């Protein structure tokens, strides 16, 4: 379907230097009419810099940008939009209290007599646009009331409303559930069928292979190759991205399980709105096994994790750790009892971003010897520990005194894992431990989790990624609407899991 003759957009020899680093080194990239062109690369490979240049946020030092064969000088997002380039950022730029239509027409509102805002015309235009591309959104809904997937559609509509014919999507599936991702892909297919061109930034191999017509891989600021989808495999792409062979499946021995370390019985947990989010959950995790809880986001996983780590009081039920009653214990007591917790959101909970790496690494143990004596901290010992852990866990991009916010997501996650694993917990609760990480980092995290299992720890993995669940777990529990609706062995198929995850009523999810 792609018109192979004329590139709509061409980037030639783009070089961008930052002090001390070449972020883009003579990068070539071209986009054809009616294609989805994926830009694949590890975090920090230079994808974002390249797109920021295209979108007018940065200026390139060398090279040129050609739009429909003509040189283009883009100095601001405003000019990029005028040139027909739209961008959907990973973090949406929407105003939550305004309606979908209001958000879409913002800054180019239809008016009556040049003064009065013509809201009905705006809604009408949004509705037409949505119909043309088969979007399902209600122009009158308030943005804060719609799902993340719908918000993303609003962002896309915003670009379409401004007559974009080139759409840049920055890791669009990072925030979506598997179903929403499928719906997004349908929309993208619809868009290219209408002659639009899409640049799809990602570090997820499977989805790139699913949606892209061509794939350009960047590594350390350089173009490695541009390949058509046909014939490309995950292993090839991973090798190009990382520069070495990557284990996509974790190698592990069969589990040899011991005593039950985490025991949960009849647990009921209420969420912030007072609704029951976890309903009568019973489970146990034994030493030396990885138990995964699979499920679509928002089915009670967060509340379950909170209850199992003392961050939320259960309404009913019983939790024991190594035989000790912990139902109403505090977060501190859970830590003392040897429960490690890799939280699902490292920015919100896992790290104090303003703290240095060293300070983050003692988040649980800052008050303990040798890091503190009688209330006084020993910065030297804290730094020593940090130096040791940063090296041991191969954290790059910072020294012990670097603020955590300066690190990449993968390295931030390594810091969290280093902290949790180094405490030598008996029970390790890992919630979406690879969210937002690239293949190299995912491999690292997975290996650590298996190591913990082999060291006789009880590992509870909560994940939305079926790949991850299938490759790591010894037993799989499926959670749906707060209930455990099924237990499976590691040889279960994605289809079976997918059916269980959606309550058995819908078709399988990928």
């Amino acid at each position, binding site marked *: 379907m792609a018109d192979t003759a004329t590139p709509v957009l061409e980037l030639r020899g783009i070089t961008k230097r930052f002090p001390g*680093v070449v972020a883009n080194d003579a990068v070539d990239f071209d986009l054809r009419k009616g294609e989805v062109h994926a830009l694949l690369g590890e975090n*920090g490979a230079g994808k974002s810099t390249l797109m920021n240049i295209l979108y007018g946020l940065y*200026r390139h030092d060398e090279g040129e940008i050609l739009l429909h064969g003509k040189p283009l000088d883009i100095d601001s997002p405003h000019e990029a939009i005028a040139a027909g380039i739209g961008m959907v950022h990973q*973090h949406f730029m929407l105003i939550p209290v305004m309606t979908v239509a209001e958000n879409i027409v913002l800054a180019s509102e239809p008016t009556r007599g040049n003064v009065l805002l013509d809201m009905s015309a705006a809604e009408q235009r949004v509705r037409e646009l949505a119909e043309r591309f088969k979007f399902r959104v209600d122009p009158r809904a308030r943005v804060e009331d719609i799902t993340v997937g719908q918000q993303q559609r609003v962002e896309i509509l915003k670009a379409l409303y401004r007559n974009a014919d080139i759409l840049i999507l920055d890791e669009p599936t990072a925030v979506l559930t598997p179903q929403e991702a499928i719906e997004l892909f349908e929309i993208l297919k619809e868009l290219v069928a209408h002659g639009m061109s899409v640049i799809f930034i990602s570090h997820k191999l499977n989805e790139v292979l699913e949606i892209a017509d061509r794939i350009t891989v960047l590594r350390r600021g350089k173009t490695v190759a541009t390949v058509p989808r046909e014939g490309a495999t995950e292993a090839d792409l991973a090798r190009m991205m990382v520069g070495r062979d990557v284990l996509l499946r974790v190698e592990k021995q069969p589990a040899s399980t011991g005593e039950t370390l985490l025991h949960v019985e009849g647990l009921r947990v209420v969420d912030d709105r007072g609704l029951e989010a976890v309903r009568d959950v019973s489970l146990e995790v034994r030493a030396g096994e990885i138990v995964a809880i699979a499920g679509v986001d928002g089915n009670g996983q967060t509340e379950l994790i909170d209850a199992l780590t003392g961050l939320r009081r259960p309404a009913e039920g019983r939790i024991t750790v190594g035989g000790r009653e912990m139902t109403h214990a505090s*977060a501190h007591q859970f830590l003392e009892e040897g429960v490690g917790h890799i939280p699902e959101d490292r920015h919100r909970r896992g*790290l*104090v971003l303003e703290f240095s790496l060293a300070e983050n690494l003692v*988040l*649980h143990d800052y008050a303990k010897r040798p890091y503190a004596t009688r209330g006084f901290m020993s910065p030297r010992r804290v730094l020593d520990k940090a130096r040791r852990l940063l090296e041991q866990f191969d954290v790059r991009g910072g020294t012990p005194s670097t603020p955590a916010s300066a690190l990449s997501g993968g390295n931030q996650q390594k810091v969290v894992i280093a902290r949790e694993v180094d405490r030598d917990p008996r029970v390790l609760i890992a919630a979406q431990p690879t969210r937002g990480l690239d293949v190299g980092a995912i491999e690292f995290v997975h290996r650590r989790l298996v190591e913990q299992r082999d060291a006789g720890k009880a590992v509870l993995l909560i994940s939305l990624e079926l790949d991850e669940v299938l490759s790591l777990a010894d037993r799989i529990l499926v959670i749906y609407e707060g209930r455990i609706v099924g237990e499976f062995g590691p040889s279960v198929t994605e289809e079976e899991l997918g059916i269980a995850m959606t309550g058995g009523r819908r078709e399988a999810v990928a």
Partner: protein
Amino acid sequence: MTEPTNRDPVQGGQVEVDAPTQEPGGYAPSVAERLAFYQRAGGVVTPLITVILAFFAGGLVVLATGHNPLRTYQAVWAGTGLNWFFHVGNYHIDIPFTGHHVFFWWNTDTNGLAAYNLTQTLILTTTLILTGLAVAFAFRCGLFNIGGQGQYTAGAIVSVWVGSSWAHMSQGLHVFLAIALAMVAGAGLAAVAGFLKATVGAHEVITTIMLNWIAYWVGSFLFGRGGPLQNSADISVPISNDVTPSGKLPVLWGNSDLQALHVGFFIALGALVVFWLMLNRTTLGYQVRAVGYNPEAARYGGINVARNYVYAMAISGAFAGIGGAADILGWQYRLGVLDIQVSNIGFIGIAVALLGRNTAVGVGLAALLFGALVNGTSTRGLDASIFPPELAGNLTLMIQALVLLFVGADVLVLYIWQARRHLRLGRRPAAPARPEGTA
């Protein structure tokens, strides 16, 4: 760019700029992310720009009133007494009973007008350091303590009560007791707000303002006519008894009849050190900062967030309470209803903390600035032939308000900064921006 020697992330934690291994979170750094960077980079620059802008705007107002801004600021400068340091006075001290004298490289004149003005500035600085720390400490825990004024008043009430009682105590003990109890009073008052925040989630801004009024009216009642702590000499005057000689802080410099610089100045400097140590070297400070930056992560780390709200407020209040004691025991020696009702030094502490970015060094410098400004524009400090002091007081308030406004509007300062860079570089390619990865 600020010096990367300080490890504290707020004041100038080094920002890694080498970044191949650093990845973009999402790739247009949001305004907040950019702002966070410039705040770190501009730890010194932004407050400076803020102050310069405020003085510039103040100068325009002076101009509008038909006076010469330069001469006015010159007179304000003289009024602050800071010119003492550049004053050609005596640079030697006579050695008694000999014809010799020892030379010093600093000014040794302690009797002139400049010296007098300087003591006044430093007396104000002393109190402002303490009320500034009261706001800054709570800020580091993510709390906005508007109650510095009330906590200061509570400290003043208790210290004047203790200081004017028990006349036969030894001086050291008496002073210590008065300060300690003033500290407890300030801490106690502030802890109420912390407690309400921790238990029922009442917002500290509301509760501390309410507590300010409680301190205000309790003080007005205690020292008012017929009040239980009103002076015993003249019941027509709503004022306390005088602090006994044993309760007074020793004078460092100047004539104690003319409000001399007292030992409280060193207490305030000590408080700056304690503030820094507490935040950066104790487990309590670690907790407070963790809660201030990210309460959710602190909770996850096993820190009791609610308890830290109470502690942080109590410590804040303790600083303000000492401030009240320093004024009473240092130079005021008595407390009247009027003193309580017109005092606003606790509120200036908010500006001090904001301008000083809630750091020890920053608060010290900002307190000196505001101390100098308040004194330099006061009726007794400013040369009335150049600018009418009754207008100058308003000038202080204005500059103070502008500083607050600009500190609150960091984005504006940032914008001006970028615009300046834009002007300088024109449309030449790519000003060296930060790589996206460090956002």
